[in-house]
């Protein structure tokens, strides 16, 4: 089984559109995992049927029982996060600030504080419109620990791949370099970067490449909007060569990506234009890698 992760470092490079097209091309030979749980958009292109949904609990929140509180202020003195606020001598929990560490609960002499587990999202197992199993999630607003949710989504996808005998898990990763991306990368066999030739695109690719290096995963790159700036394009290609990132393909700026999105379609099903052709070839390349590069688990 091979895990291919699509990430971008910077947002807005067309990662989800590329990911959607690959999912479409892979038909039911794949298991799809949308691990960009913070801004999960892939479902808008792949029409999952939400067969099964499960609650996701993570983190705790302090709850203060006013009847038991003797206003001693012990909680206030230990909390590092301004989670306890005092107003005219009485205390209350500021839910937005509480980190859920539970220190206040431990020092409260009257047991007035209880820690409650929070439901912060849901995750789903679906069948996508091309018949593949798709595992995806919705993280509630302001939720913490998206890394753990990513791990959960991935594990579920692995379970399905095994059960269904699928060779490839295609994973949509989130932007950034924090816990969510770390979770998405762990255990991956190949990383596909989707970037653009802009100062930000290059800057973010460099940062995320360093992270990927730490995981020792092979990688390739699709340059979207490649005609945006020729100088930046040269810089990007030089960087990729130095960093050992394969240049999978380049796609010129193309508004049909948006036109397809407006119809809830992936680009390759929307039309057979130049960008679609590039994506079809790219997918063949990536698949070849997945099939030939040995070490099938």
């Amino acid at each position: 089984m091979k895990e291919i992760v699509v990430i971008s470092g910077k947002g807005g490079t067309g990662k989800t559109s590329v990911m959607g097209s690959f999912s479409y091309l892979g038909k039911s030979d794949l298991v799809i995992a949308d691990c960009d749980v913070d801004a999960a958009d892939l479902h808008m292109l792949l029409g999952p049927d939400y067969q099964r949904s499960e609650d996701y609990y993570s983190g705790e929140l302090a709850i203060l029982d006013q009847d038991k509180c003797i206003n001693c202020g012990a909680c206030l003195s230990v909390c590092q996060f301004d989670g306890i606020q005092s107003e005219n001598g009485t205390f209350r929990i500021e839910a937005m600030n509480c980190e859920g560490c539970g220190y206040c609960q431990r020092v409260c002499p009257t047991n007035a504080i209880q820690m409650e587990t929070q439901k912060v999202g849901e995750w789903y197992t679906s069948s996508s419109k091309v018949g593949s199993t798709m595992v995806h999630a919705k993280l509630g607003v302001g939720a913490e620990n998206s890394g753990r949710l990513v791990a959960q989504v991935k594990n579920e996808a692995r379970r399905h791949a095994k059960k269904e005998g699928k060779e490839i898990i295609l994973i949509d990763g989130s932007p950034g370099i924090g816990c969510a991306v770390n979770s998405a990368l762990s255990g991956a066999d190949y990383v596909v970067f989707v970037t653009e030739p802009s100062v930000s695109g290059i800057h973010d690719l460099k940062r995320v490449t360093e992270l990927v290096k730490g995981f020792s995963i092979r990688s390739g790159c699709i340059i979207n909007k490649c005609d945006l700036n020729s100088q930046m394009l040269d810089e990007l290609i030089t960087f990729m060569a130095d960093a050992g990132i394969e240049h999978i393909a380049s796609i010129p700026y193309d508004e049909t990506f948006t036109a397809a999105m407006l119809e809830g379609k992936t680009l390759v099903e929307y039309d057979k234009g130049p960008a679609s052709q590039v994506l079809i070839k790219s997918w063949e390349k990536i698949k070849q890698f997945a099939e030939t590069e040995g070490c099938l688990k």
Partner: protein
Amino acid sequence: MKIAIASGKGGTGKTTLATSLSSHLSETQDVVLVDLDVEEPNSRLFIRGDQTHSQSICKQVPEWTGDCSLCGQCQEICNFNAVIKVGTQIMLFPELCHSCRACSELCPESALPLKPRKIGMLNQIQAGNLIFVESRLEIGEQQAVPLISQTKDYIDNHFDESYIIIYDSPPGTSCPVIEASKDADFVILVTEPTPFGLYDLKLAVEVMRKMKKDFGVVVNRDGLGNNDVLDYCDMETIPVLARISNDRRIAELYAAGELIFSTIPEFKEQLLLLERSLELSTVVDPV
């Protein structure tokens, strides 16, 4: 006045707007632009100036002295699995630690003293009259929130109310965004008029309402997709503060790391409109 510029989805033009707005305002007022997108700090690429200050940012994490009764209370205390007792060892996972101090202060043998651990760098840059502060998360560190919160502390300690402070927030709707915008007086949500843009905008609006924030929307790449974002804002009575048209020249200037308002008059017009609606402009502009 503190203004946070945020967006549910990444790549909607948040940084373009933050750098343009702050540079333009700094021509007439004292402005501090703060890049709180610490995982991928990009604003600096658009700011030309001299670095005037740089410092490491640390968080306090426990370190085991190696000498204790191995009671295992620390493991039981830590809600984040950052302390584990394995055999005759106490193992620490500093990337998971939230620096709550509980294990350290409740350890009966004071065997877990707190030590600083570097999680990022803060840099300050003077670009003309604009002061720019950014923080960059160390690669491999998993938590952006402590770095964001300490960067805000730095700002509060160095700049008083006479400054206009603009935060370039991280994308998304999870904890880093909340941390970045929770003490802002106003939040600008930047979005695109596409289905992805709308979906992520709705999530961001949910966050803002939950936080009881004053906020408005800037539509970027206006004309690209459809009218659903505008209709949604209209229905929800969310003010649309400006509409930046879908202009290839903007994308090209952005790609090269250039500020846009000086070259593209239509963009500047929208910027002035935004400043007026935020009551930030000092002069009544004839545009």
